[in-house]
């Protein structure tokens, strides 16, 4: 095939003044601006462009659009490598570096081609029948290396992607003749109309058949108010009129620098007009996959749009009337049309082919000559099945098997299809939800009829009126089955995945007769082209081999995306730090200055500890915990969940939310409470304080506040709407500085805290509203570490001031900042539980000693009924216990399992929290243990990854069991 460039005016999309250098497989070439990589390769006479997936047969450019099966390339290097790009839609830009895929070492000498020789033993599904002995793992690695086309990038993607949301009245997908007519009519009828053109310019096929009319039509649509977006391809129709499209912003040039690469359009449309045209169906004949066998429409497009003649002597293998128009175009482009071999008998032709072309009717191709390029073919007529085949010398075979309307968007929207026998195609069977099809994708091919129908449809949709009747296709007859009976050799149905008629026959023979089984068993239609040119031929062949009409065979499900779409385009800005919000402390800078080591805790960025030089996290935490016990420490508790609950029914409502009773609290009193879900499982815990008769201050865990606030709101709105209260999260309005330790009060007094807050004047588990240097405070004496402890809630913008003033006097009280790790040590020393660490989704309040007195409570609180089920009353439940290491030295690993015998055996529990206690000089741990309440003093075995450690069940708290330290130093 000696493809070559045609002179102007051929090549309506070319800018012949702009020469574009590019490279393919290391060789340098030149094309023009407006070329695609495929058209530029053809113009430079490059015939061999790819290798097929399974047999590694040589392949050349086959099509001119998204349906290209054979010319996939990797583009760009390193982090910029984009695998499997479709060369037929890749716009040529200066410095484009492309490399062919799925071949080693090169396209011309590919070891994989050995598969073609073994083809006889590699029918469809051969891998199900073998590779079982000794074991699939023997064979898998080499099979995986053979499979796959391109290669993935080797570093994270430097390019950026974004998304944009828009609402329109009428969205027109496709800017060909039908699309533009519909858009103009809809816009003239007053609708907000947007038109999406997948390519660089509107007009579709009209743009290269009649550029002048295409420009005028596009301009008139825009004058009427329609907005046309180019390089924007609608790839999916989703629920409720959502259409998603991908806009290409930059092509892959050599300048490997980060840019905004693609944009995702999320379009909500009241009505969608699909005007996406139709794909040409390839003819089925032996070796119809050779480089030089191309879709007839593509050959015409390369000539008219890209100024490339794909060959000098062409044979048109036809099965429809449009083949004769294509033949005429190729003759105009200076190519010699050797013959039109029409599969249909003369009587079946819709119209007379006209003078100048030799037509061989009722005939088909019985062989193709040439391996890496077509050198000729042989033709045989049905009338003389055993007669001598006639050889035709040619370097190009144009395949014109009829058309397959692009019914993808119609199907995404749930539309049904209908088979037209005469035209041998599936067309939409009426509208589908918001999607109405016009033009070729609706099976309307006659230009005038299509334009008129599109206009009526556009106007009707804009006005919300009845749709116009569907006109006839106007395209003449096409045969469904085109293969010559008795022809020998591989007659391909799916070019990319190497599926031929023999494979379809095998599937039918082995009863893989559902069209869905055919696809999965032979992999036809599962390539990157998703069966755009193979689906109809495959299902027609299946019908032939299983005695069914195409309508009875049906199609597989059309699924988004219409073309492969970059993962980054779906993700947009949700990468790196923006993948998921990270909550920051109000006075983060203060902690940075103190050398804090930050970690993520429940999506908060908080200090785990404040390591001093030479300390790691654990050493720092040990020091901090000891310092709190000895002197004093401060912790930034701002993430603590805080809810303001106000209203006359607030107390009654909280009685329904908490296991314990809240309504008996007096103003200023605070009580620890646990919240369940309806299954009785402990979901959250925290302190509830009464501010006034009709107002409560509710603390929850920092990770659980959004879930708990939502749960309260759900119960209020859905179950107890009659109760008069409101729940307002105020977590971010209040900073929280917790000052704990025996000298905590002395430290606070030193910076001017009101004497009314002194331990003697203010009892533990009470809340006082006070002021400090003009700042209103809510101060609560609550202790998660067992020492004297003040939780100071203040307006968030005053947090830094309090931290600075405390830090200025810290040394006097040997006071330190302490992080989460130290807090965990301190609370474990006291045996206080941490919801989500010591408890899980099965823990009931009774398991953690929080169910005392439940029977006496009146309110049917959330989850209460679940506590009366047999599983809840089971004496063998796992309950929270304290554990000592038997040797007083070895740390019990968190997650270690408890069981008398070594595994495999039934576990009796696991370690939930475990730290070395600096205060006691030995490890302390908590665990969930079967019947733990009655096993204090028992010696148990703890198993961790094969190691066994002895432990003893004991009682918590480990430190200050009588709680004498709660009021701090005298």
């Amino acid at each position, binding site marked *: 095939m000696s493809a070559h460039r045609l002179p102007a005016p051929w090549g309506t999309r070319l800018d012949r003044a702009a020469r574009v250098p590019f490279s393919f497989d290391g060789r340098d070439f030149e094309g023009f601006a407006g070329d695609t990589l495929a058209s530029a390769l053809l113009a430079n006479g490059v015939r061999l462009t790819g290798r097929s997936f399974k047999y590694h047969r040589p392949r050349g450019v086959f099509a001119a659009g998204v349906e290209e099966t054979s010319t996939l390339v990797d583009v760009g290097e390193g982090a910029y490598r984009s695998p499997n790009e479709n060369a037929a839609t890749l716009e040529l830009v200066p410095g484009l570096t492309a490399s062919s895929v799925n071949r080693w070492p090169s396209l011309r000498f590919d070891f994989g081609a050995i598969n073609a020789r073994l083809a006889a033993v590699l029918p469809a599904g051969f891998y199900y029948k073998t590779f079982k002995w000794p074991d699939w793992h023997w064979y898998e690695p080499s099979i995986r290396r053979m499979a796959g086309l391109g290669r993935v990038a080797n570093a994270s993607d430097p390019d950026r992607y974004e998304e944009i949301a828009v609402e329109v009245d009428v969205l027109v997908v496709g800017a060909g003749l039908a699309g533009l007519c519909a858009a103009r009519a809809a816009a003239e009828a007053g609708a907000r109309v947007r038109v999406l053109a997948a390519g660089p310019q509107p007009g579709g096929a009209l743009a290269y058949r009649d550029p002048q009319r295409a420009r005028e039509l596009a301009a008139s649509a825009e004058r009427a108010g329609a907005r046309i977006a180019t390089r924007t391809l609608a790839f999916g129709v989703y629920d409720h009129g959502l259409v998603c499209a991908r806009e290409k912003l930059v092509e892959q040039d050599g300048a490997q620098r980060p840019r905004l690469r693609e944009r995702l359009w999320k379009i*909500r449309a009241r009505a969608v007009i699909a005007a996406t045209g139709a794909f040409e169906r390839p003819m089925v004949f032996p070796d119809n996959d050779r480089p030089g066998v191309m879709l007839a429409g593509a050959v015409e497009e390369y000539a008219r749009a890209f100024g490339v003649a794909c060959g000098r002597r062409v044979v048109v293998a036809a099965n429809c009337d449009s083949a004769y128009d294509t033949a005429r175009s190729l003759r105009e482009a200076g190519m010699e049309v050797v013959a039109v071999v029409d599969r249909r008998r003369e009587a079946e032709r819709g119209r007379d082919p006209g003078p100048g072309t030799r037509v061989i009717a009722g005939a088909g191709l019985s062989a193709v000559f040439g391996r890496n390029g077509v050198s000729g073919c042989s033709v045989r007529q049905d009338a003389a099945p055993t007669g001598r085949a006639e050889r035709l010398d040619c370097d190009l075979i144009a395949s014109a098997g009829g058309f397959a309307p692009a019914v993808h968007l119609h199907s995404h929207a749930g539309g049904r299809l209908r088979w037209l026998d005469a035209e041998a195609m599936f067309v939409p069977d009426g509208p589908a939800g918001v999607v109405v099809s016009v033009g070729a994708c609706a099976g309307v091919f006659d230009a005038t009829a299509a334009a008129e129908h599109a206009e009526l449809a556009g106007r009707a949709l804009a006005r919300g009126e009845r749709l116009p009747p569907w006109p006839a296709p106007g395209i003449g007859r096409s045969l469904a089955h085109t293969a010559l009976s008795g022809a020998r050799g591989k007659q391909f149905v799916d070019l990319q995945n190497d599926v031929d008629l023999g494979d379809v026959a095998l599937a039918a023979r082995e009863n893989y007769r559902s069209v869905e089984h055919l696809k999965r068993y032979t992999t036809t239609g599962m390539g990157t082209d998703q069966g755009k040119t193979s689906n109809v031929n495959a299902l027609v062949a299946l019908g032939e081999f299983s005695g069914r009409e195409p309508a009875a065979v049906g199609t597989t499900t059309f699924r988004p995306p219409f073309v492969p779409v970059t993962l980054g385009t779906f993700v947009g800005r949700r990468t790196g730090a923006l993948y998921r919000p990270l909550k920051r402390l109000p006075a983060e800078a203060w902690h940075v200055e103190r050398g804090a080591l930050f970690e993520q805790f429940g999506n908060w960025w908080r200090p785990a500890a404040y390591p001093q030089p030479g300390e790691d996290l654990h050493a720092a935490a040990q020091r901090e915990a000891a310092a709190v016990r000895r002197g004093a420490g401060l912790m930034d508790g701002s993430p603590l969940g805080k809810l303001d609950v106000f209203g006359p029914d607030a107390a009654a409502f909280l009685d329904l939310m908490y296991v314990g009773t809240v309504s008996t609290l007096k103003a200023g009193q605070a009580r620890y409470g646990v919240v369940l879900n309806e*299954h009785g499982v402990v979901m959250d815990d925290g302190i509830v304080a009464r501010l006034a008769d009709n107002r409560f201050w509710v603390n929850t865990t920092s990770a659980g506040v959004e879930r708990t606030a*939502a749960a309260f709101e759900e119960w209020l*709105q859905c179950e107890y709407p009659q109760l008069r209260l409101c729940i307002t999260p105020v977590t971010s309005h209040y900073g929280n500085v917790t000052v704990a330790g025996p000298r905590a009060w002395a430290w606070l007094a030193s910076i001017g805290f009101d004497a009314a807050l002194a331990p003697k004047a203010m009892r533990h588990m009470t809340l006082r509203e006070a002021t400090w240097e003009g700042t209103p405070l809510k101060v609560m004496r609550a202790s998660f570490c067992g020492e004297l402890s003040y939780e100071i809630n203040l307006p968030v913008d005053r947090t830094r001031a309090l931290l600075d003033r405390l830090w200025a006097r810290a040394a006097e009280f040997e006071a330190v900042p302490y992080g989460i790790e130290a807090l965990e040590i301190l609370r474990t020393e006291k045996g206080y539980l941490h919801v989500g660490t010591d408890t899980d989704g099965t823990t009931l309040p009774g398991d953690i000693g929080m169910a005392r007195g439940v029977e006496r409570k009146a309110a049917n609180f959330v989850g209460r*009924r679940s506590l009366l*089920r047999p599983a809840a009353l089971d004496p063998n439940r796992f309950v929270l216990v304290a554990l000592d290491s038997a040797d007083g030295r070895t740390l019990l690993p968190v997650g270690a399992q408890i069981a008398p015998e070594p595994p495999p055996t039934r576990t009796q529990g696991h370690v939930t929290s475990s730290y070395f206690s600096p205060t006691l000089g030995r490890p302390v741990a908590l665990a969930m243990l079967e019947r733990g309440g009655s096993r204090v003093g028992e010696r148990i075995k703890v198993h961790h990854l094969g190691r066994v450690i002895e432990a003893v069940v004991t009682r918590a708290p480990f430190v200050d069991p009588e709680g004498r330290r709660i009021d701090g130093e005298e």
Partner: protein
Amino acid sequence: MLRIRCIHCGPRDENEFVCGGTSHLTRPPLGASDGEWAEYLFFRDNPKGLHLERWRHAQGCGAWFNLARHTVTHEILAVYPITERPPAIVERTPPSAEGSR
């Protein structure tokens, strides 16, 4: 992605909402049997067709409301306040067991 008309805020994308499952369940009293409690907690019609369900406009006004929605086509037949029974038109539409694709 659904487009749900919030009862207060108007049409919004599905990712602003949270579905709260089947609506119009009555919470049994404390004295209910384990079987009645299980029916309330777990057992559902799970219809392939019309479903009366609760939704919360989580990233909007925060309100709960009821939706009558078809679980195959996702068509939304009605939006009505959380405290009300379904509107008449919904009652008459039988939950169809239409084949799904």
